[in-house]
Each structure stands twice: as structure tokens, then as C-alpha cells.
């Protein structure tokens, strides 16, 4: 929304006194809201001169050009003049004529339009088809006051006074040297009044500590006593949806002379971002911009035609649309209406989309002579839904969705009628219709002085608070320390005491608030175990040369399908994602990680040693898993890691890649897990190669899955053959839970023995190791010794069915030096037990 300082100064001349642009911009930002852009028209009209065109002659060498002599009363120096002191200007405008008054841009001046577009064009005397022209006569476009470029600006409005020889400051009177500030709409989502120039003028006055007085016609609505037409028409105005349209006003005007608006008005609305159309349409835009109150002017005769009724038979008013109904709007937009859209009907026919846009068939055009003005208040939520539904975000819709007051429609109608009576000769040809059941003015709010000061950290006096609020036209009564505040009718946003706190703090200036830390009890802020665990994992993985990455929480269906997951069955689906790659909440982190492998391998991103471990700490979701207490999907906290090495780097390992992921998991967890084959894990079916994968269990709980990617994934994601991965649930993972209790250190030397046991293939390494560890510990304990077991080679001679497991077993005593004899006995007992109880053979 754009704001014109000139317009504000017109309504509050105090804003022209001692107010400097830079200071104003800075105060605006600090006390009202951030400004997006500043457009200054201050300096661009310096060179512009008012001239009379004395003579117009054909150009000797060009049909379309004319050679004019203009009189600037010798105001400009250093320009060629004829004997009579007149200046020659070549002009191509069809409307140039002797005797007219125009604006001249002399040599050395800059075309104002060009100054606003940062492509400054400086004029000089130059030859046009053999005739030297000193500068140019300016069109509205060149003057940056509209897009009109069919001719030069004709100062007919000023001609009488200029002819009389009055000293007229044309640029000044047109209000051209403006300062236009543009700010984001969302800053004023709660401020209906700030969508009107008058509202912002009032705020600025408040910020400068000046009293603002809105124009009399806005505060005390004058009588509606405009000139009446001889022929009066009657309209039946009906409102069947009073709950959605709390106020609906209409009035008909005839004798309307459609033409271009007065130059000042055109220039204003153009600077404020509207395209000047004609005096009627421009006036609706001007009033809307001034007050924040939208309105729509219909061609009355077209309404009768569309309605198919005769004079005096028009039935007019708001209604809900019917399903299947359609309407053609301004700008040739044809839309299918929804049953919740509010429309304006003329004898049943929809002629406008209420609060959003008028219809094409009843548009005011150059042939219009009678106008029916509608000025309503529509339900903000209804307008918002229709606006979203049809993608129509018009200036009117933006304002209606800010909850405009129902108390200003009559003011807006009065002011619009005054403008049209003045600029279009319009006369009233109907009653003023006003369907307004409940007047809704803001209620008084009672507040204690403390309530305000405590929230702002200030020590304001009641009188100071009263002054701040009265400046912006709140009514304030102070009695001791209680303050009663009645917001003006346009402040529908001020409802509770906290709203008043904001007004006081803002108008007083936030920079006046003392900056002091809160004083509080010295309690401990409790720690968050999940965050601590994650940080511990990150530290360990960084030490293990792994890289943490982050990937999107949403994935596309293809990747999931490749991993054997039916996304529609398993995943929450996003229904409005702009990008098709963000369709499903991921049920596992692994596919996202695997997708990052190939690009990195290809780029040799791992360096000459092209191997890496990528991991992510993230969340996963499964469609049917809902927490009953909160009704929200259960969030699983997961750790996933992928290890990958290109063909060359993989040579530093031998055997299945499975063991590399296994190494990472066991090292970070500081634990030994139980591994089971993955038969029944649903998510694992196509994600993993079944012969190279395992379920990970800890203390009887399922923790996650580990292994090598399936063949189909290797192929579709172009993964190196030496790739393995795991994904575990952080809530199930017990970090470092397997550490043994502290054992005192012995002062006596220990002894170490090696043993190799051969299994015929029925036992796993874990079974054997567990047996060896438990048995030797028990045997040693009986002799008051401590034994520790370190696994060694796992060896299977080529073609042999058996597997050999080697262990290094160390013994130590707290009280004596061990002899080889006693250790030998323990080893013999172990070996015997292995052969008898565990079907293991001892290798010599």
C-alpha cells in the first residue's frame, strides 16, 4: 500500500511544518512499520515551466510535427529566443494549439518521468528535421502524472487565472512534489484505518506528538443535500444476507459527464499505483485510498438492461451465489461462482462479486450518464475465502479482509457524491438507500495506569497517556489512576486493554523504554536428554570421520517405491506442495541419504580417497501411527548412516560392506547388539539385500536395521558395490550402556594365552564369543582371577565347512603373580567345556 505525504499534509497541514523527509521516514519505520520503498517526487519538477503557446505553425519537413513559439515570460536563461523573446519548441502533439497553456521542459532540465525510472534523460536544444527545438512541451506521461501520451498536458483548469496574469504555481497546486512511501500490506493486517491515506496521516501526527483532526465531514456526517435531478428514479434495495453484509448503501446519480479526472486527482491516484480511467472510476479509487472504504459504481442503464426491467423496477442488493452460476468480471475474467461467494444482484442477475470486483456488463464507460453507487461492508472471512478461491486479490478485497468499520460507509458515499457533483456535474436521482441494522462502534475500555506501565516497563503519567491517545482521536477520561479509553469508530482493531498498551507504547516511542533484564530466581534450567544424545552421537561420528548432512523431510514417491515402500499406504501425503518432489513425509531416512551417494562419488567429492560416511539425525513418520493422547502423528527420532567407497577405495577393506556399517553402529553406541536376520521387517524388504542385512536388537527391543542396499537400489541409485547403511531409533538406542563397572588395577603382572576354536558351522561368532567370555570369566572367578577376552581372526580354510575363531585371553590377579601352570589349567577346562558342551573343536 502506498502513502502520499502530500495528501496527508492536505488533511493535516501540521505535517508540513518542521517535518523533514528523512526524519519522517525514520519515525515511520520506528513507530508505525517498516517502509519497503520510498519514491521521491520532490526534486523532479525543478525545471518545469508554465508557458503559453503563442503560435503553432506546420513543420517545413515533417507532416506530423509543428513548430510552436512559447512564452515563458523570459523565465529561463541561456535559451535561444526570437525578437519577441519567444522560444521555439517543436511539438508532435495533436492537441497543441495557439493560445493554450502548457508545461514546458526547457533545455538543461530532466524529463520527470525519466527521473523516476533511474534512466535520466536530460533535454538539450536539438535539431528535429532541420528545425532547432529548445526542450519540449510535456505530456502527462513525461510529467509522471499518468500514462496519457496522446497529447501534451493542457492547463485549461488554470487558464483563466493565468490569462489574468496571476502568478500560479501549477506544480505546487497539483501537489506534484510528493513523497510516496510504500509498505508491505501484512504489516497492517490488523489496521483497517492504515489502508487509507487519512489513517496514516493521523498516525504520523500522533507520532510527531501533534493533534490530528479528521475532516468535519468524516467526524460529523453532513446532510446529504446535493443537487437533485428533476427525474427521480426508485430502486428496491434488498439485503437477504445481513449477517454477511452488515451494511449496504446505494444511491443513483444522473447527468454524469464522463471525462478525464482533474489533473491533481489523476496525478494522485497514479502516484498511488492506480491507473486513471475516468472521473467516476477514479473517484471510487481515490475515496477508497483516502478512507480504506471500497465502493463500486455501476452504469445504472446497463443494470436495467441486464436485469431486463424498466425504469423504477430495479431490485438491487447482495446475495449468495448459486452453485453453477457464473459471472464475467472486469478485465474479461469469467469465473464460476461458488455457493459461498457473495454477489450483488440486479433482479436476480449477478452483476458483481461482492467486495472483490465489478461485472463487465455493467461497467461505467464513456457512454455512461447514470451511475448507481454501491458502498457496502462485507464479512472479512467471506471475502477472503472468495478472493482465495478465485485468485482475485484486488485492492477492495485486501481492504475488506482487514475488517473495515461499518460506520464510515455513509462518509465515503457523501464524499464520493461531493466529488462527482463537482467534477462530473452529477445530480442525485434516487433516495440514499442505507440498510444498516446494527451500528457497531468500539466499546470503551477501562484500564489501570499500572496495567500499561507494567507491560511497557515505563512510568507514564495518566495525562501523558491521555495526550498520546487523544492526538489520534481516541476519547480518554482519566479519573485518578483509572483511564477509560474509547477508540474512534474506524479502529475496529482496538478491543482489549493490551491493544491500548500497544498504542501507548508505540506513540510514545519504543526507544524510550528502559532496557533491563528480568530479575528471576536462580533455578536450574533442566536439560533435554534427546538433544544431549544427539550431540554425543555427532561428536563421536565426527571423530570417526563421518559427515552430518540434512535432507528434506519430504520425498517423492519414486524413491520410496524403489525401496519397496508403497507411499500411499505408508506415508502422509502433502496435498499442496509447489514442487512434485515434496510429496510424502518420509517413513525412513535411508532413501534420502542413498540419493546423496552417487552425486558425491561422481564428483570425487571424497577426494583421492573416495569413501565417506554420511549420516543424518532426523524424524520419520508412518501414516497410521497416531499418538492417542494428542491426536498427532508419532514422530520417530532416527539416526541413519550410509558408508560408501568407490571401487578403488573399497580395496582397503575385504569381505562384505555390511561390516563397515556394523563397525560404525557399534562404535558410536559403545555397545554390542544382537543381530537377527531381516525376514519380517516390512521396511527392509526391498531396501536391503536380505543376505547382507540384519535387524538390530538391544536388551530385547528392536532398535533398527543394518546392511547393504538391495540390488535394485544399487542399480537405480547408481550406488557403488561397497555400500552399507543402518537406521536406528534414537529412543530405543541405549548409548554406551554396555560399559563394565570399574575394576581396580593390579600391581602384579598378568598372563595371556591364545586359543582357536573350530565350529562346524552351526554356531555364530556371537554364540562362540559369548560362550568363551562367560565360561572363562566363571572359571577365573573361582580362582579369584580376572579374565578378559579379545577376539582375533575368523578363518575358514578354502573349501572347508568349518570356521575357526581365535581369541586372546588375558588373566590377572590382584594378589599374586600368576604361573603358567594355573593359567594352563584354566585354559584346559575352557577347552574341555567347549568340546563337550558347545560342539567346538580346539585347533592346536
Amino acid at each position, binding site marked *: 500500500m502506498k502513502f502520499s505525504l502530500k495528501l496527508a499534509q492536505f488533511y493535516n497541514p501540521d505535517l508540513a511544518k518542521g517535518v523533514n523527509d528523512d526524519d519522517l521516514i525514520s519515525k515511520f*519505520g*520506528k513507530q508505525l512499520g517498516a517502509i519497503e520503498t520510498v519514491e521521491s517526487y520532490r526534486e523532479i519538477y525543478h525545471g518545469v515551466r508554465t508557458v503559453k503557446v503563442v503560435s503553432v505553425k506546420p513543420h517545413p519537413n515533417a507532416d506530423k510535427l509543428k513548430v510552436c513559439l512559447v512564452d515563458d515570460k523570459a523565465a529561463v536563461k541561456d535559451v535561444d529566443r526570437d525578437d519577441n523573446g519567444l522560444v521555439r519548441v517543436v511539438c508532435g502533439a495533436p492537441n497543441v494549439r495557439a493560445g493554450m497553456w502548457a508545461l514546458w521542459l526547457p533545455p538543461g532540465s530532466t524529463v520527470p518521468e525519466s527521473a523516476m525510472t533511474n534512466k535520466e534523460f536530460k533535454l538539450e536544444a536539438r535539431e528535429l528535421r532541420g528545425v532547432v527545438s529548445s526542450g519540449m512541451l510535456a505530456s502527462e506521461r513525461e510529467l509522471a502524472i499518468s500514462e496519457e501520451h496522446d497529447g501534451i498536458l493542457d492547463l485549461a483548469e488554470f487558464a483563466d487565472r493565468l490569462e489574468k496574469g496571476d502568478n500560479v504555481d501549477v506544480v505546487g497546486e497539483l501537489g506534484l512534489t510528493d513523497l510516496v512511501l510504500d509498505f508491505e500490506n501484512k*504489516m497492517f*493486517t*490488523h489496521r483497517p484505518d492504515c489502508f487509507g491515506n487519512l489513517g496514516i496521516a493521523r498516525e504520523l501526527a500522533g507520532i510527531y506528538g501533534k493533534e490530528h483532526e479528521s475532516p468535519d465531514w468524516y467526524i460529523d456526517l453532513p446532510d446529504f443535500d446535493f443537487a437533485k435531478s428533476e427525474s427521480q428514479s426508485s430502486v428496491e434495495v434488498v439485503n437477504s444476507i445481513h449477517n454477511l453484509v452488515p451494511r449496504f448503501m446505494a444511491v443513483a446519480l444522473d447527468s454524469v459527464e464522463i471525462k478525464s479526472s482533474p489533473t491533481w486527482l489523476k496525478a494522485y491516484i497514479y502516484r498511488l499505483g492506480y491507473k486513471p480511467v475516468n472521473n467516476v472510476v477514479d473517484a471510487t479509487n481515490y475515496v477508497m485510498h483516502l478512507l480504506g472504504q471500497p465502493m463500486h459504481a455501476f452504469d445504472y442503464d446497463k443494470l436495467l438492461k441486464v436485469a431486463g426491467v424498466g425504469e423504477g423496477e430495479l431490485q438491487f442488493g447482495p446475495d449468495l451465489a448459486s452453485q453453477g452460476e457464473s459471472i464475467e468480471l472486469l478485465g474479461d475474467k469469467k469465473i464460476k461462482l461458488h455457493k459461498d461467494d457473495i454477489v450483488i444482484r440486479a433482479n436476480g442477475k449477478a452483476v458483481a462479486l461482492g467486495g472483490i470486483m465489478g461485472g463487465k456488463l455493467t461497467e461505467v464507460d464513456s457512454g455512461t450518464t447514470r451511475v448507481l453507487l454501491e458502498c457496502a461492508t462485507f464479512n*472479512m*472471512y467471506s471475502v*477472503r475465502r472468495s478472493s*482465495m478461491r478465485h485468485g482475485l486479490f484486488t485492492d477492495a478485497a485486501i481492504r475488506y479482509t482487514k475488517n473495515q468499520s461499518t460506520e464510515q460507509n455513509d462518509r465515503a458515499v457523501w464524499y464520493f457524491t461531493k466529488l462527482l457533483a463537482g467534477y462530473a456535474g452529477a445530480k442525485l436521482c434516487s433516495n440514499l438507500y442505507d440498510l444498516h441494522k446494527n451500528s457497531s462502534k468500539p466499546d470503551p475500555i477501562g484500564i489501570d495506569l499500572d496495567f500499561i506501565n*507494567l507491560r*511497557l*516497563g515505563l512510568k507514564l503519567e495518566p495525562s501523558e497517556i491521555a495526550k498520546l491517545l487523544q492526538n489520534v482521536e481516541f476519547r480518554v477520561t482519566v479519573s485518578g489512576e483509572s483511564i477509560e479509553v474509547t477508540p474512534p469508530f474506524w479502529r475496529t482493531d482496538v478491543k482489549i486493554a*493490551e491493544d491500548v498498551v*500497544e498504542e501507548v507504547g*508505540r506513540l510514545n516511542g*519504543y526507544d524510550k*523504554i*528502559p*532496557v*533491563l*533484564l*528480568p530479575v528471576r*530466581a536462580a533455578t536450574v534450567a*533442566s*536439560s*533435554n536428554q534427546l538433544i544431549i544424545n544427539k550431540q554425543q552421537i*555427532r561428536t563421536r*561420528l565426527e*571423530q*570417526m*570421520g*563421518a*559427515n*552430518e548432512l*540434512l535432507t528434506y*523431510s519430504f520425498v517423492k514417491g519414486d524413491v520410496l517405491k524403489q525401496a519397496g515402500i508403497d507411499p500411499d499406504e505408508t506415508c502422509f*501425503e*502433502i496435498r*499442496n506442495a*509447489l514442487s512434485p518432489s515434496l510429496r510424502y513425509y518420509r517413513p525412513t531416512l535411508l532413501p534420502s541419504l542413498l540419493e546423496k551417494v552417487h*552425486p558425491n562419488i561422481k564428483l570425487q567429492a*571424497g577426494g583421492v580417497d573416495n569413501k565417506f*560416511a*554420511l549420516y543424518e539425525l532426523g*524424524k520419520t*513418520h508412518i501414516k497410521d501411527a497416531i499418538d492417542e493422547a494428542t491426536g*498427532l502423528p508419532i*514422530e520417530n527420532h532416527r539416526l541413519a548412516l550410509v558408508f560408501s567407497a568407490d571401487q578403488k577405495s573399497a580395496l582397503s577393506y*575385504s*569381505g*562384505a560392506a*555390511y*561390516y563397515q556399517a*556394523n563397525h560404525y553402529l557399534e562404535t558410536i553406541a559403545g555397545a554390542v547388539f544382537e543381530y537377527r536376520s531381516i525376514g519380517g521387517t516390512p521396511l527392509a524388504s526391498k531396501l536391503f*539385500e536380505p543376505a547382507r542385512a*540384519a535387524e538390530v536388537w538391544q536388551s530385547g527391543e528392536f532398535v533398527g536395521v543394518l546392511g547393504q542396499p538391495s540390488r535394485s537400489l544399487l542399480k537405480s541409485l547408481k550406488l557403488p558395490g561397497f555400500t552399507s547403511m543402518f537406521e536406528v531409533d534414537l529412543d530405543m538406542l541405549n548409548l554406551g550402556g554396555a560399559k563394565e563397572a570399574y575394576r581396580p588395577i593390579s600391581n602384579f603382572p598378568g598372563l595371556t594365552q591364545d586359543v582357536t576354536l573350530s565350529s562346524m558351522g552351526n554356531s*555364530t561368532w*556371537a554364540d562362540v564369543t559369548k560362550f568363551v567370555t562367560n565360561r572363562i570369566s566363571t572359571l577365573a572367578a573361582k580362582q579369584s582371577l580376572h579374565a578378559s577376552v579379545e577376539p582375533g581372526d*575368523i*578363518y575358514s580354510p578354502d573349501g572347508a565347512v568349518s570356521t575357526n575363531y581365535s581369541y586372546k585371553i588375558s588373566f590377572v590377579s590382584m594378589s599374586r603373580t600368576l604361573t603358567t601352570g594355573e593359567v594352563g589349567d584354566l585354559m584346559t577346562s575352557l577347552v574341555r567345556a567347549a568340546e563337550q558342551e558347545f560342539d567346538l573343536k580346539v585347533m592346536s
Partner: protein
Amino acid sequence: MKEIEQARVQLRARFDKLNDDDKRTILRAPELRDLFAMIGSIEPASKAQFGQNINKLKQDVAGWVDDYESAAESRQLKPIDITAPWDINTASDKRPASLPAAYGSQHPLTKEMQIISDIYLRMGFEVHQSREIDNEFNMFTSLNFPQDHPARDDYDTFVTKDGYIAPAHTSTMQHRIISGSRAKLEKGLPIAAIVPDRVFRNEDVDATHEHTFYQIEGIYVDKGANVGHLIATLKTYMSEYYGQELNVKIQPFYFPFTEPSFEFAIERPARLKKDDTEEQKWLELGGCGMIHPNVLKQAGVDPSIYTGFAWGFGIERMVMMKYSIEDIRHFMSGKLNFLRQF
């Protein structure tokens, strides 16, 4: 379309009966050829759909073969001992090993969140996590956004088919934290918490915009909490984070869940300052305000006794400024040449 479904049943039955070595021959089954030949005679309206369905069948049949062959290859793979620390016959220098520590890195965003959380923890703020899937109540309603209020448009939220919402700000935790910590207020202790976590906005991605990013929310509720306390809390944190005394300024803004609402800016820290121009003087960082009485009320806290303030800012921008990172997309790219620089 019936023909296609019939063919599917026939083909599957035949596939299951085929010998191991002949499974592949199903790909050349005459039924598929015949179906393709039928396309020409299908009425134009359903031709496209018919074609798609045949293609789908053809893909499915290829899938059966792939699945079968994968399973067959798996069966041929020599089983490994999944309980062992390394494979059979692995020499001691070729066993699984960690990569050199020098290769390791932590993501710059989680690293920064750790630094930020640590400062707040030292200031006495608890650290909470947010959610990645939430509901309208926590995203809007509990934060005083009326149903259909235009302020909801300012958050381009991702919505699931079941009506869940991907949080567009970490303020979704306000209601939960305040209502969950109410007991503290009754003991005369403040509620002081921060939430650094992932948020989502449904918008197009470019060098400065991401649909997935990180935000930190701060909450403080106590008797007598005021705007001056809010500014001082921001100032204390920012000064510690940037290692120099910095001023904070606030300017009016609008959020439905705070009243009054502000945007805040800090004096630009020396190490991020290019010159002494006005533009370089302030660094706009985020939004803040006094918690709206309706938010407190909904969380079961009496706003006539307790007041509170909240603030929030984005993390990517701070990290990008810190390291002069030129493109926000690097964060989620998973590129090693990016990750290993941290």
C-alpha cells in the same frame, strides 16, 4: 480395460509355473503383444488410459522378473555371519575401520544451533524440540489466529491430505510449553524456554529461499515481564553470540500471537560490517512481542497476573553471514565439498 486385467491374471499364473531358467520368457508373452495391437481399435476417449494401463502391466511384469532374479541372486550369495565384527578370512589390516577424524564434520546448521542453545541454556532457558508434523490448533488456533483470518495467508503452509500441517514457525510449541510449564509459575518461577528446529514454507527455492529451514523461538513468562525485559534479553543474547556489546531496536509489526508485536534489529556486529553507511548500521533479524493474552489464556495462564514475551529468528541467515555462504541451497544439498568445510 477388462482385457488387461485378464491378461495380468493369466501372465502371473504362467510366470509362477515357469522353470527357474525360463522366467525371463514372460517378457515376450504374446498377451502383451496382442494388447498393444488392440490400441488402434480403442475409442479415442479411453485410448490414452488404455495405453497407460498396458504400460503399467508391462512394467509390473518386468518387476516380477527383477524381483525373482534378485531373490535368486540373493540365494546364491554365500551367507555371512551377521553377528561377527568382520567377514571370514579378513586380514587384520583390512578389517572395518573408521575414516580419519580429519574427514569428519558436523552440519553448520546443527553446529550453530548448538552454539545458540548453549548460550540460552547458560542464561537459564530450557531447550525444547519442535515437531515436523502438527495440527492447525498448534499452528494457528492456539496462537490467536481466528479461523479464516487473513494473517494465516502470510504462512505458506504445507498441508497433508489428512489435514495435518508442516509447521511454518517454531511458535507451534508456545502453547505446549506454556501449558506444560504452568506449575512453575505457581511456584514463583518463570517459564523460560527456546525451541530451535526445522520449519517449512511452501515456496519456490532459490539462492536465498528454502522451503525447509531452521528457526529459533524464545519464550519467557512471569509476573511483571515487560517490553524492556524483552529487549534486554535479546540484547544480552546477541551481545554474547557476537562477542561484543550490541544494541537492539524494535519497530512495530503485526503478529496475531503477540500484542504489541515488533520486528527487531541489532546493531551490525563489527565483523559483518562493510562500511559506516546507514544501511550497514542495523541488521534486521526477526520478530518478537508480548505474548497475546488469548495465547496465555488458552494455555491456562491468567494474563491479568502473568505476562510474557516471545521472539523468533532464522538460523540460516546467521550462518550464511558468519561464513559468507553464497547459496542457501547448499545446506540441504548433501554435497561433501560443502559439508567437509565445517
